[in-house]
């Protein structure tokens, strides 16, 4: 069992870890010394602190294998999925600074309130709207069609909110729908089975929608699954503009 195995401690010096502790009213950094271990992840570090140093530390995780998207935090100022981030890849001068995700309200310590993040998925009409019933044949989709390739390129999002934390436009404009919701909308716009395109275009073409994006590409830089929400948003901009010019928006 590698995840919490204390018997594999190496002779490397302990890691100097600064962890943000607090609540919605404010907080500060608290220092810990954590033993260094082989193949140690940032999530291992946080878990070690909770189990061995301070049981009141709050954070969120579930799968530990990069699938659930729950454990994202700021590590040395950069948003990362902590379960798949190795300490030796990101540690600077033997020290780590761990904070809750940027751009989201804090609940306690390293746990953020994800409500606005998921609300914006709804606002962007980020749900599939089928046009067929169960009595019809299953739609045959060619994985090689240009439209399907575009949709596939955007589908591997795990809702970790790393793109949302890295986006300066979200920081400047709290109403902005954000990269994840818009990326989701783009994948649905390219799904041949979906019938919600018109309403979705009106939703993402609104004043808090895709045209707010400055294409800075923080989302694409830090997405752990190497998706490119900036490209998806650029596609939405073109799609919305065409609909607007043709009078088919809203």
């Amino acid at each position: 069992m590698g995840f919490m195995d204390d018997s594999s401690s190496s002779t490397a010096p302990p890691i100097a870890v600064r962890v943000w502790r607090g609540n919605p009213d404010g907080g500060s950094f608290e220092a810990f010394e954590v033993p260094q271990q082989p193949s140690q992840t940032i999530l291992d570090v946080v878990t070690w602190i909770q189990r061995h140093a301070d049981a009141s530390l709050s954070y969120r995780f579930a799968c530990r294998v990069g699938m659930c998207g729950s454990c994202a935090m700021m590590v040395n100022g950069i948003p990362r999925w902590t379960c798949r981030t190795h300490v030796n890849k990101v540690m600077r001068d033997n020290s780590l600074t761990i904070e809750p995700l940027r751009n989201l309200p804090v609940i306690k310590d390293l746990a953020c309130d994800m409500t606005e993040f998921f609300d914006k998925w709804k606002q962007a009409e980020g749900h599939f709207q089928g046009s067929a019933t169960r009595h019809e044949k299953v739609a045959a989709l060619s994985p090689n069609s240009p439209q399907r390739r575009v949709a596939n390129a955007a589908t591997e999002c795990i809702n970790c909110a790393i793109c949302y934390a890295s986006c300066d436009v979200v920081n400047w404009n709290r109403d902005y729908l954000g990269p994840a919701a818009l990326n989701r909308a783009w994948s649905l716009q390219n799904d041949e089975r979906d019938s919600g395109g018109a309403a979705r275009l009106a939703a993402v073409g609104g004043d808090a929608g895709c045209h707010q994006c400055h294409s800075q590409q923080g989302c694409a830089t830090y997405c752990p699954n190497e998706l490119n929400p900036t490209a998806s948003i650029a596609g939405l901009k073109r799609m919305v503009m065409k609909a607007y010019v043709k009078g088919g928006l809203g």
Partner: protein
Amino acid sequence: MLELRLYIAQRVSATIIAPLVLIHLGMMIYAIQGGLDAAEILARTRGSWWWAANYGLFVIAVAVHAAIGLRNVLREWLCLRGAVLGAVTWLSFALLLVTGLRAVFAVVMP
């Protein structure tokens, strides 16, 4: 839908500005061969509908483009909103338009 309209206006104005900048740069490189003074410039531009249209269109496009860009900066960096943001945007548009067109008139009027 205001943001979408502004986005389109800024892209359309950029599309107009780009070739006009190339014409301007090309003209400058061509015109300064062998030296140039103010009298020579004015001799070419005064009474020229071509240069009046060229730079007049450039000034209008720049006023639209820059005012929208400035609006984005003010909204995001200084958190301006609503009527104040609209007023500053229109003011910057008017300032760029008036000063720019004044300069165009100065060099093209006979």
